C-alpha cells in the first residue's frame, strides 16, 4: 500500500499518458496527500506535459526531407551495388 517517492513519481509519469490503473492512482493520491516533494513533482509534471505538447506541435509541423544531393548520392550508391 505504501509507496516510495520513486514509485509514486513513476505512477505520476504514467498517469500523464492516462495509462495508470485505478489502483495505482489510488495509492498515488494517498502518497501525494502526505508527501510535499512528490506533490510538487506532480504539479510540475503537468506543466512539463504542456511543454512536451508544445515541442510536439513544433516538431510535427516540419516535414523532414532529404535534399536532392542526398538522394542522388543514395541512388548512385544503390546503382553501384546493382551492377556488382
Amino acid at each position, binding site marked *: 500500500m505504501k509507496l*516510495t*517517492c*520513486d*514509485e509514486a*513519481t*513513476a505512477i505520476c*509519469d*504514467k498517469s*500523464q*499518458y492516462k*495509462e495508470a490503473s485505478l489502483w495505482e492512482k489510488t495509492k498515488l493520491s494517498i502518497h501525494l496527500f502526505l508527501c510535499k*516533494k*512528490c506533490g*510538487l*513533482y506532480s504539479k*510540475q*509534471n503537468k*506543466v*512539463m506535459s*504542456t*511543454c*512536451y505538447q*508544445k*515541442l*510536439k506541435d*513544433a*516538431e*510535427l509541423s516540419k*516535414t*523532414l*526531407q*532529404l535534399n536532392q544531393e*542526398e*538522394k542522388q548520392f*543514395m*541512388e548512385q*550508391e*544503390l*546503382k553501384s*551495388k*546493382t551492377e556488382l
Partner: protein
Amino acid sequence: MSETDKHLLNPEKWVSLHADYLFNYTISRLNDRDLAKDLVQDTFFSALKAKNDFQGKASERTWLIAILKRKIVDHYRKINSTKGKAEVRMNFYADGEREGEWLEERAPTDWSGEIEKKIENQELAVVLEKCIANLPEKYAMVFRMKTIHQIETEDICKELGITSSNLWVIIHRARTQLRKCMEDNWFNN
C-alpha cells in the same frame, strides 16, 4: 494470388518513391539526421540483397519498412548494451535505509517567476530539445516515440522488444531527468 496481382520490386525507383518516407520514419525514432540517412541507405542495400526473397504479397514500401524496422531494433539493442551500460545514470532517489526517497539536492524546488509566460516563450522548444539530447540515448529514443510521436505503448514494446514495465521505467527516468534539466535551465534560470 495470380501472377498479375503480385507486387513487384523496382529498385531504380526506391529512392524517389520511398526515401523520404523511410527517412521520416527513422527520424521520428532516432532524431539524428545522419544516422537516419545511413539506416535508410542500409535498408536499400539489404533489400537489394534480399530481393529474391520478396514474394510480392506485401507492397514494396511495407517490405522496405519491415527491413528498416530490423535496422532500428538492432540500433536500439546496440545502445542498450554497450553505451547504455557505460553511461552513468543520474540518481534522484536514495538507496539503503531510505530507499526510494528523494535525494535532498535533486528533489523538486519551487519554480520562480511567471510559469505561464515561460511556457509560451518560443525558446522553450530549443532548451527542451537540448535537455532531451542530454538524456542517455535509449531514454531519449523511447521518450520521443511515446511522448512526441505518441506511438502506442504496445507498438513501441513490440518494435523494440521490451516489456511495458521496461518502457515505464525508462519513461519515468527520462521525465525525472527532464524536469530537473528544465528546472535548472529554464524555469529557475
